[in-house]
């Protein structure tokens, strides 16, 4: 097996960190095992010959729908669901 298809606990901890997920020790143990099985199964895609084949980012030819770049009134208050509001701003957590 090539190394590419392995998620060990160290890599899992890194993935959790970049995904902003605080995993418990139990979750880390469980996922290390489960993800290994899942990746092994996914490995079958290696067997398909895709030489010269273009990737399909969409299933059908999708084109951007564009409109005039003009200012329009917003119909609702984008802050109304937040409890982290100060004045007309969102207040985020501290940086450090």
């Amino acid at each position, binding site marked *: 097996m090539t190394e590419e298809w392995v998620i060990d606990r160290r890599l899992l901890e890194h993935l959790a960190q970049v995904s902003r997920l605080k995993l418990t020790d139990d979750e880390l143990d469980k996922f290390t095992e489960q993800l290994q099985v899942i990746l092994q199964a996914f490995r079958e895609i290696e067997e398909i010959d*895709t030489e010269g084949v273009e990737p399909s980012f969409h299933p059908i030819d999708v084109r951007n729908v564009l409109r005039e770049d003009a200012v329009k009134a917003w119909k609702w208050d984008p802050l109304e669901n937040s409890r982290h509001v100060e004045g007309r701003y969102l207040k985020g957590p501290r940086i450090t």
Partner: protein
Amino acid sequence: MTDPFLRAKELDEKYRFLNAVAQDTTSTGAGRLQGYSVSVKDCICTKGIETKAGSRILEGYVPPFDATVVSRCRSEGAVILGKTTQDEFGFGTFNVNTPYNVPLNPHDLERTCGGSSGGAACLTAVADFPHLALAESTGGSISCPASFCGVVGVTPTYGRVSRWGLIDYANSLDKIGCMAKTVGEVALLLSVIGGPDEYDSTVLDVPEEDFADLEISVEGVKMGVPEEYFAEGVDDGVKDSIWVALKVLEGEGADLSEVSLPHTGVALSAYYIIAMAEASTNLAKLCGLRYGLQPEEGGNFDEYFSRVRAEGFSEEAKRRIILGTFTRMAGYRDAYYLKALKVRTRVIEDFKRAFEEVDVLAAPTMPVVAPRFNEIAEMEPIQQYMMDVLTVAPNLAGVPMISIPCGEVDGMPAGLHIMADHLEETKMLGVARAWEVLR
């Protein structure tokens, strides 16, 4: 006349299909959906009604706007009933991956309704008042529960229906569709919700179509039967039910032939890699700041976001975020994500080749009838993913499909899946309607 709100709440006590009920019960009056109550899957935004996509991280979110599909229903005279339960963000095949209501199958309360639109299918099956359901499919989330609950479910061509106001699972796969008791009713709802929308930049530039006036003859219709969809692993009883239907349709003049979709098996892995990669980017925006779950602040941004996300996402969501992040990471991206997208091209080619020969494809919707909850509890995640083997390929290819009840196995409904080429919903609905009349 039955009050649909009271009746739905009454039925919900037994079957557990709702996540929220609407407070505003007024109809705008005349229109094609006048007299109908429309239930909305929890991942589709509804103005003034809590919308959480089955996830704790969105608990308490009340959208200040309606998704395009919802506003189109309202403007055609429908009343919005409430929100139907689902697997968190659509992550599941049995509607058990949610901290909220797990719907019970009306045919046997110890079995699943299927997922992820399980609540929609459950309510559609038990509603004894005029009702239509707005559902959503990424990899089979309309067809699967429609099959398990014995109702009709249509997944339109990718891009036919606006996704504006849908809480994304995977952008290149998500389709809003419909469920109802009859083919005529799903056709009616599809006619209302389809067509261009200035708010969805990926919606197809095709004119609105009216599917309500359906041709019900199958005389001369070329129906392809893909051999891979009757392979090992598909329950014999389910196969037999489908063959009974196919023989009846053949007797009415349908022209049956065997076709091959050789990338059916591998489509499963490609699907999960693509869906998880897209999901992991979509869910990055959920951080407990603007809406939904917002605990007390504490720690720096890194600690706060990680804590909210760990608390708000359930186990399956975490698994998919981790895997999706892995498959698109520098160094792994080519081997997983890009490779899967190339396999997807192969899957699309399979369908395009088949549709050069036939008008529609016919197969079992699911390889089994609805499993029992105790059987599901024993399944590892990979075994659960494998249940989607017959629905992910058409979803990856973005072709339209409909599941329609087709006999019973052990007292549980089986589903006949009719698939058509992109934007050929009319052909597919016509065959489904013919079977509905004949069965």
